[in-house]
């Protein structure tokens, strides 16, 4: 293992401005929809107006004849199915057999302008045979009235079930027997969406048998693969370029129909074609937060130690697979890396419904169980007469241990994070006043998934460096989606070569020019691309130092040669480059990062392992009005174990953005359907927090210097969202003595809980029952030795 953090640092740890801040504040940055190529045509997609229907016919005759229309394509032109996961290749760019949600693409037009394309779409005649739609988890678990949403080979389970999983780690029944107290709760987390400010957009150009696609995607590599499959073009004839990115949050991680469609249209017309989704289409494209119903049962000793936990989830997946086969695992897998659960049973289920497909949104599959678990433990603490913070603390995982489901924990700053927010907020010393409350919660998240989306043993990130007398260029497939991954790469390379980030040129997210990186999702870029960049930069530093050492006549004594401030030994950087180029010829180095194999010895162990976990703790301070049910958030304190902050300005930006997004989910954001249709596919109807709704956020960075992250860094983009949502609901109980066991915690739910309290009923609003789900037989897994930190071959052969 390479040494990943040594010596005094000059650039890493500095709160420097982002390397791409200039173009972003001047309007010079080119986003996908800003691209205009000569002779470019515009594409519009005809989408289903029905939630569930067989397509009897699609007739584009009239549309084709319309002036200004160049080409109309339908499902037969793009019959090959695709999907982000190899196990869920269930989408077509244009569907011709049946539609499964309002918004499912059916046909596409390339025309001289958007208006003409739109008019042509309206002129396409589609004949449907409408089918009974399935709009809830309960409906999906019943036999369908007409037919299942997808044809399923496995008929042993209800036909609209997409995935079922069931595991037991350790002896759960024995654990419950040891408990002094056992409690069950049911929670519901409503779905919500990413709502990036930028609508998805893609531009394709096909020249000389080669396709180029610019897109607002989070992962150029996955788009590359999907285009190759659906267009039947070899990958070497496709180039995918990530345009400046206007916000993702997980919503631009799947390959999308419009990307395939514009590519096909460019190939057919021989002209560049652009498709920019309308805001309404963005709501249908979705892939956002799954609605999840959860049931949890936990046993604890009198002093609050967890003895066993049984957790069940049911995910409403919407119409297609997307990341869902992974999402269902994520609702169960990370409970064990925050709390030491000696015996754990997890049963998960994802169903298909006739709604826009759900997928990964910031925290992917974990905000829902985090909400449930934190509130559930809060209730247990109160039942046992314990302080919730203290009780949770008694169960915190310890650094450098292995969880019951084999996940390996390295650095862990939970204790310190908790101290920071509890002290700064005055959580324990506050003066009580009516309607005022505070809530506390913790969380953890992965620094990148330890397993690739499609099975392979190759590196997850690769970086190349080119150095010559004109400067330094970094090549990496990672996409900066605004989080600042380009800046992180520049920081790391600058640190190693004794430069400043602004001295480093970046070429990123371009499949022709950059080596593969698996993209910006799963909080993986700082950790994985960062480690690859560090390796490449250290190799380059060695070449430069060797050349300088030779010139200085110090032979192999490299160590005393200082690198920094634009100098390498007695030479400035440019002179050092001349020396090294003279000595070695072209100066290029490469670095790559492959995460260690961490998963336990059981099938399904690939979801959840990460080389390192971040930790967060939050306190939320609210005022709740018992007449209106309105909750006003006064302040949020959030401490985050970042490992090491490579650029603290960017880390705090990620924390503040996460807290804000969490408050939106906690209090107002929801993706609701009525009569098969999205209730409000617009930014006015889909409520999200404005400046006025967003409180002061005080952030604390806790640095635990992880042994495997670059300079000890871990993730920051997703973890800080997680504790905020349950902390809001805990604060409501603190303020008004009622539980809202549902997200979002809208005023009507608060009032209904208060109403029940007034009537002397259980002071709670939330789901009443968890459905009977035909979970399969449990896969029973022996827990590991909690001190066994082995990974890879060592672990596999053990």
């Amino acid at each position, binding site marked *: 293992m390479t040494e990943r953090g040594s010596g005094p640092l000059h650039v890493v740890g500095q709160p420097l401005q982002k390397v791409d801040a200039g173009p*972003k*504040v001047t*309007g010079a940055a080119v986003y996908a929809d800003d691209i205009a190529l000569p002779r470019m045509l515009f594409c519009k997609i005809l989408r289903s107006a029905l939630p569930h229907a067989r397509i009897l016919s699609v007739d584009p005759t009239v549309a084709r004849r319309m002036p200004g229309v160049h080409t109309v394509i339908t499902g037969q032109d793009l019959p090959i199915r695709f999907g982000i996961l190899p196990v869920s290749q269930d989408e077509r760019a244009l569907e011709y057999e049946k539609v499964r949600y309002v918004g499912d693409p059916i046909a596409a037009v390339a025309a001289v*302008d958007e208006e003409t394309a739109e008019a042509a779409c309206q002129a396409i005649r589609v004949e449907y045979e409408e089918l009974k739609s399935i709009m809830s988890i309960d409906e999906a678990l019943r036999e369908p009235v007409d037919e299942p949403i997808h044809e399923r080979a496995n008929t042993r389970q209800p036909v609209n079930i997409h995935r079922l999983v069931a595991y037991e780690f350790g002896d759960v029944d024995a654990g419950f027997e040891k408990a002094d107290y056992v409690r069950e709760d049911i929670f519901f987390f409503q779905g919500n969406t990413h709502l990036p400010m930028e609508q998805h957009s893609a531009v394709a150009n096909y020249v000389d048998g080669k396709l180029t696609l610019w897109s607002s995607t989070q992962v150029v590599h996955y788009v590359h693969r999907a285009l190759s499959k659906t267009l039947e073009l070899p990958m070497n004839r496709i180039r995918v370029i990530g345009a400046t990115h206007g916000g993702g949050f997980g919503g631009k991680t799947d390959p999308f129909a419009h990307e395939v469609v514009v590519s096909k249209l460019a190939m057919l017309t021989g002209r560049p074609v652009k498709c920019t989704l309308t*805001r309404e289409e963005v709501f249908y494209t979705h892939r956002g937060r799954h609605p999840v119903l959860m049931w949890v049962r936990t046993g604890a000793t009198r002093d609050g130690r967890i003895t066993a936990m049984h957790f069940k989830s049911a995910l409403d997946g919407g119409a297609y697979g997307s990341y869902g086969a992974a999402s269902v695992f994520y609702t169960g897998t990370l409970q064990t890396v925050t709390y030491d659960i000696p015996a754990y049973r997890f049963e998960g289920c994802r169903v298909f419904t006739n709604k826009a497909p759900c997928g990964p949104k910031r925290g992917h599959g974990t905000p829902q169980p985090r909400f449930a678990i934190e509130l559930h433990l809060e209730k247990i603490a109160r039942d046992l007469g314990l302080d919730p913070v203290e009780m949770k603390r008694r169960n915190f995982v310890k650094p450098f241990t292995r969880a019951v489901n084999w996940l390996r924990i390295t650095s862990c700053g939970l204790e310190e994070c908790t101290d920071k927010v509890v002290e700064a907020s005055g959580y324990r010393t506050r003066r009580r006043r009516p309607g005022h409350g505070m809530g506390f919660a913790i969380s953890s998240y992965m620094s990148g998934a330890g397993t690739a989306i499609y099975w392979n043993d190759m590196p997850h990130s690769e970086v190349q460096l080119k150095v010559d007398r004109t400067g330094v260029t970094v090549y990496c497939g990672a996409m900066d989606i*605004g989080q600042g991954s380009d800046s992180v790469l520049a920081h790391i390379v600058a640190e190693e070569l004794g430069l400043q980030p602004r001295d480093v040129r970046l070429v990123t997210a371009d499949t022709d020019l950059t080596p593969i990186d698996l993209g910006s999702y799963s909080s993986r870029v700082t950790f994985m691309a960062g480690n690859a960049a560090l390796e490449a930069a250290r190799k380059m530093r060695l070449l430069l130092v060797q050349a300088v050492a030779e010139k200085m006549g110090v032979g192999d004594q490299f160590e005393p040669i200082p690198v920094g401030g634009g100098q390498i030994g007695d030479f400035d950087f440019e002179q050092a480059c001349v020396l090294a180029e003279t000595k070695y010829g072209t100066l290029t180095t490469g670095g790559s990062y492959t995460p260690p194999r961490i998963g336990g010895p059981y099938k399904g162990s690939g979801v959840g392992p990460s080389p390192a976990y971040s930790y967060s703790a939050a306190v939320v301070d609210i005022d709740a009005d018992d007449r209106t049910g309105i909750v006003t958030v006064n302040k949020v304190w959030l401490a985050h174990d970042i490992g090491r902050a490579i650029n603290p300005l960017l880390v705090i930006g990620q924390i503040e953005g996460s807290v804000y997004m969490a408050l939106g989910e906690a209090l107002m954001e929801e993706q609701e359907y009525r009569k098969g249709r999205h209730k409000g596919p617009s930014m006015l109807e889909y409520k999200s927090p404005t400046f006025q709704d967003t409180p002061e956020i005080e952030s604390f960075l806790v640095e635990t210097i992880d042994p495997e992250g670059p300079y000890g860094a871990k993730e920051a983009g997703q973890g800080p969202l997680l504790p905020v949502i349950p902390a809001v609901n805990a604060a409501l109980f603190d303020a008004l003595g009622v539980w809202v066991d549902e997200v979002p915690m809208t005023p009507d739910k608060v009032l209904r809980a208060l109403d029940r309290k007034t009537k002397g009923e259980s002071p709670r609003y939330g789901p009443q029952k968890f459905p009977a789900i035909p979970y399969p037989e449990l896969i029973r897994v022996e827990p590991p030795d909690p001190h066994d930190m082995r990974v890879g071959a060592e672990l596999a052969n053990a």
Partner: protein
Amino acid sequence: MRNIEREVQREVFALHVNGERIQVLVPVHKTLLEVLREDLGLTGTKHGCELGECGTCTVLIEGLPQLSCLVLPIQLENRRVTTVEGLTQGSHLHPLQQTFAELGAAQCGYCTPGMLLAAAALLESNRQPTRDQIREALAGNLCRCTGYSKIVEAVGAVHRAVT
């Protein structure tokens, strides 16, 4: 010529954008947002909804923030329009652009042009706004990345930076 066979009513409009007088021949129903982006190449102005809901396409008309997706060129005779490109003097950044960059107020940067213009209008009328005044003035502009904190900080920092 586009759409020669469809009857689209076009007119010549005299616009005054970022200090330049420009004539455009466009369909009468084309919005200012579309004219800026498609006819004048001013793609710094972004769009998030094209329904007047998100604030992303904010420009200044006679110094006041307006949603360019809801404005038609016919409304603009003899009125000065400023876009994000017009904030920069040559290659010299506006103080707001400077503080936005330095303090991390732009993450993905997509809402940034609209934010900058709404903030510039605020500072024109109130050189030293309070935190609450900033939050109120910018409340019509949505941002999904920053949690707004750094934007408030950046607007508040301009006064300190220039004095």
